């Protein structure tokens, strides 16, 4: 009982009692000047802290409730508001309850010339026994360089660093069937005008950059292939690599004249940086940043009416690298 009374008295004293300013031992001058008490602000700070505590209590409650609608919102609101109430309490404390001194102080010295000289002297004087400095420097440089090369050598294991052949490889070869995402072979009759289709080589990894194709069927008057692509189309159907030659995104927009009256020709467009290619002209760049035409795949229609590749692409697939134009793709 007596203990409870002590606790009660102590807490009342804590709540109401204001600290008397005390002189430090020896009657020295204060470091932080005294300020006027602000009981109103103190009360407000306490109220803000209590509000913060209430919000903080709400967080585990919201967390514990299963199937609560808007749980993320309630969790965020309770925790966020709790933090903001604490912020408000602290800022109020800083503005009203803490003595804000504006003190002046000298900037640190710009430099320490004597110390600098001493440092230089220590280094210079420590080397008095060396007579062949040039040679020694050369040896240290050589060792440092050699060791550096040795230490970074294991990085080469990260990937095939010198072999460029994987960049030219595609799964396409003569006779390979064109299939859709569910591995069903495309028939020429599936391909309609003013629509576009994604095709893959039968049985190959669909994710490899050299795999995916866009197929479109163009009316005869839109088809104006350059001489090197003569015979690439089959009954108006043309096939191009689906990977943009600019930065490697998939070409997923087909601008058929039907939808955009102001654009004269059908075009394949990459949505990343809007490189625009002409499907009727062998994949020529019409607009946008791509620096290389879209690689074209020669196709034919077999006796069953299914689409097959006649060979490999007419150029390397995917974004360009140094020397990309020097070789043709391989199977």
């Amino acid at each position, binding site marked *: 009982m007596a203990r409870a009374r002590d606790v009660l008295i102590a807490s009342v004293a804590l709540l109401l009692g204001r600290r008397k300013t005390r002189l430090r031992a020896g009657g020295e001058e204060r470091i932080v000047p005294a300020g006027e008490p602000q009981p109103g602000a103190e009360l407000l700070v306490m109220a803000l802290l209590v509000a913060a505590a209430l919000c903080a209590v709400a967080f585990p409650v919201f967390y514990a409730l299963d199937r609560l609608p808007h749980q993320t919102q309630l969790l965020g609101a309770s925790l*966020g508001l709790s933090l903001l109430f604490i912020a408000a309490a602290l800022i109020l404390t800083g503005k009203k309850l803490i003595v804000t001194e504006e003190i002046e102080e000298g900037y640190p010295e710009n430099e320490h010339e004597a110390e600098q000289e001493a440092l230089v002297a220590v280094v210079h004087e420590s080397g008095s026994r060396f007579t062949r400095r040039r040679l020694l420097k050369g040896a240290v440089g050589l060792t440092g360089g050699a060791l550096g090369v040795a230490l970074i050598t294991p990085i080469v294991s990260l990937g095939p660093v010198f072999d460029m052949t994987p960049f030219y490889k595609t799964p396409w070869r003569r006779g390979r069937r064109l299939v859709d995402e569910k591995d069903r072979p495309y028939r020429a009759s599936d391909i309609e005008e003013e629509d576009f289709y994604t095709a893959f080589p039968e049985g190959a990894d*669909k994710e490899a950059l050299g795999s995916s194709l866009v197929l479109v069927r163009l009316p005869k008057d839109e088809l104006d292939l350059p001489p090197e692509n003569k015979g690439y189309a089959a009954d108006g159907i043309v096939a191009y690599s689906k990977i943009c030659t600019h*930065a490697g995104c998939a070409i997923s927009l087909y601008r058929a004249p039907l939808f955009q009256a102001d654009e004269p020709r059908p075009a394949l467009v990459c949505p990343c940086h809007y490189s625009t290619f002409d499907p009727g002209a062998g994949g020529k760049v019409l607009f946008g940043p791509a620096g290389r035409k879209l690689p074209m795949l020669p196709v034919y229609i077999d006796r069953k009416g299914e689409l097959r590749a006649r060979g490999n692409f007419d150029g390397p697939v995917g*974004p360009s*690298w140094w020397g990309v134009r020097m070789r043709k793709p391989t199977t």
Partner: protein
Amino acid sequence: MIRKAVRFVDQRSGTAPLLRKTLRYLFPDHWSFLLGEVALYAFIVLVATGTYLAFFYQDSTVQVTYHGPYVPLQGQEMTEAYRSVLNISTTVKAGLLIRQTHHWAADVFLAAIVLHLLRIFFTGAYRKPRELTYWLGISMLIVSLLEGYLGYSLVDDLLSGMGLAIGYGVALSIPFFGANLASLIWDGPFPGQHAFFSRMYIAHVFLFPALIAVLLGAHLALVALKHHTQFRRERRQSERKLVGVPMFPGQTPRSLGLMFAVAGVLVLLGGLVQINPIWLWGPYHTYSSTNGAQPDWYLGWLIGGLRLVPHWDFVIDGYTLVPNPFWGGAAFPGVVFAFLFLWPWLERKVSGDYAFHNVLDRPRDAPWRTAIGVWMLSWVVLVFFAGGADRVDVLFDISYTSQIWVYRVAVWVVPTLLAIASFWACKELRAAEVVHREQHRAEEEAHAAAEREATPV
């Protein structure tokens, strides 16, 4: 209590004199000095929320079938990485809150760094003796940009994959060794092998954050060693004398208050404002992409750069020296960061000002610096806007191609006009101040003379 603690610490570390100095370290009072602090506190939130996310994330590209609670994706093939982020967003309690807070914190972190950098640049705070502090800051900005990019790449939704494809395209475009470098990073041509995701993950959760922490430590240590700069707002403030509020008690509640405010706003945003709804995009395949995809804001200038450049590959006699993405994706940020790194040195060379500076310039005090800064800033901002031209096309039906042509001209003309205008504005503001001062002095003299006459001798 406190006396006991102080004695304990001092007897065992001998740091009482140092701690006393630290406690009374002076902070000059100006709102713009808080921008760097906002970045610091956002970084703390990033580390805290990121650590939590790492308890659930799986850096695996093994293909799995989704059977989670989000109906539209049920039965779809996806990587384990994407599934784990979907689970964080749907089944882990408070997971979505933490993930969105993490994403918001990244956006705010970079925004605060960029605003802080603008303050530093336009007030000349980077001048001797604070060049090292400045260079550390720029380095942190670069690492943070990469860190943010890796962060949203790890999700492995459609947006991540498109971003990675572009990153691959830019890496590949580096002259002479780009393909070799990309092959090392991705372990072969895109989309790479399984190891690639582990590499991104360790870089995102350990290498880059640790690097930022080290740079940050050095940055703050240098700030403290050389003390803050200050604006000259009172007569007693000078190159030799600093006026400010001591760390304790004055600055502590303010700084802590700012920390809680930053954390509070980020958590509120994370809970109430949706960001990157990854379930809507679906899994990535190299053969799929979507229209209207935009990166986080801090990479918007790069997508603008990539989109603006006309279709130039630099080819010499069949040898492709510079593929196109290099211009917008590597050369453009390269020029911007080279400018930022070299600027303190360039300014010193040209102006011949080798003195120590503790007092800040106002932008008008250095018209040349302000004009050049305005040129660079508006250049980058215009390229940033060019990156959003497709949204303008969709929203306001203004043809994309004509917008791009306008931007291709405007990014050179508008910054030049703005630079000239700001140079002129600086001069005018200064001249007006001189006139004002003269007037003030004349009035005071007249007033004093009148008083002398009025007072009988």
